[in-house]
């Protein structure tokens, strides 16, 4: 069973590049300001979510292990 992830987007940093939404469209969506927000952190594999986070041009996406709090990205 895959571990649970805590995923969020720092809106002080997000520039709305929307690459996360392209990589993991079920996990990320754009809000009214066209910044990314997390719709469902369980809607893609850990590998896909980490790929989305790595492809953020400003490293605005934070991924943690929901249970241990271990920082997985950045």
């Amino acid at each position, binding site marked *: 069973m895959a571990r649970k992830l805590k995923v969020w987007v720092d809106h*002080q940093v997000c*520039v709305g*590049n929307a*690459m996360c939404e392209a990589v993991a469209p079920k996990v990320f969506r754009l809000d009214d300001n066209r910044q990314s927000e997390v719709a469902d952190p369980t809607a893609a594999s850990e590998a896909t979510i980490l790929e989305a986070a790595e492809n*953020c*041009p*400003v490293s605005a996406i934070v991924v943690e292990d929901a249970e241990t709090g271990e920082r997985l990205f*950045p």
Partner: protein
Amino acid sequence: MLNVVPVEDNMFASDVIANPYAYYGRLRDTDPVHWNETYALWVITRYDDLVWLTRHHELFSSAVFRNDPRPAYPAIDEADNPLYDYVRSYQGDQFIQHDRPEHLEMRRVMHSYFTPKSMEAWRPFVRDAVKELLDAAEAKGEMDVMRDLATPLPVLVIAQMMGVPPSERPYVRQLAEKLLYIGRGEYDRMKPLTEGMRGMIDYVSPMVDERIDNPGDDFISVLAQGEKRGIFSRHQVLVNTSLLLLAGHETTINLLCNGTLAFTRHPDQWELFKQDPEGRAKAATEECLRYDSPVISIQRIATEDVEMRGKVLRKSDRIRWFISPANRDPDAFPDPDTFDIERHPNQHVAFGSGTHHCLGATLARVEGQEVFKALAERFPNLRAQTEGLDYQPSITFRSLKALPVTWD
């Protein structure tokens, strides 16, 4: 009849080129969605408007050259119209001149090459290159930051990424200088511009041929893969290789020069920076990007009628959004005209915003951080000869012509 250009609408006037902050700042404060009659385009100068516009890419097309049949502006020699047709077909193949869904598909080919993590791996190469260039400057006892540091460094880095041999780098720079005529106003600019474009195509063609057959880990191989996957035509691979060669250095040159100038004009900030160059390099580079941004403005075309601040931008209207005044907007930045290397938060728009946010942003940041840090460590009493500085007559790039500095 004399065709007199009203001073307030002449974006190429020498005082506007010398100090864009006064002119565009006045527009931002009094008429933020301004119709420029002379060039028949909208001038957008507020920070919040710029962010909103760049994030609504479906309303503002980036495919400017394909969606705008109007003649070049400022006017060119009519005999040069066939050359302008070539410019349009060349520029139109750049990935940045596309909208979704094509833009996303094209950008994805290259995007993962430029992630913050992958660019961080280039930091040691950048640091060594900076050291070598400063060794040479130190031996000479003087330097033109433009000629001796800001130009060779990014050319070296992007050439390394592309697999361009060292001996050919000066030739690449020569071609790039011709391509810079794109943002300028000279009546006879089409000739050098198209020479640069054709020269680039001729130069990169054999390299692309080679990488199609023998892909490596260089950036041209990444683009060549895009052709194999049917996302790019061959002409698009060639044009985008040239684009990255140019974009990969021209804007960084401006960051390095404009930032160095800002430091030398603000000795208190230079003192502060020197206390901890390593710890302050990131925030200071962001402030350099905001305070005197490398790119002044970028164009879009309205895809439908759009209302902004009570004015209606009609479908197909030309729109230019101005980074320089937006980054000095008092509604977005307290004391916007103050150079403050500890500014926080500092959500500037030097790299634009939205789906077209600069692909090379992290690389530019790494180069800026390493240069400012090295200058502070090696030339603590750096002084610029700031009298009579001259800028290129461009509304796209904020480019000094030279920046001579001295030290004890």
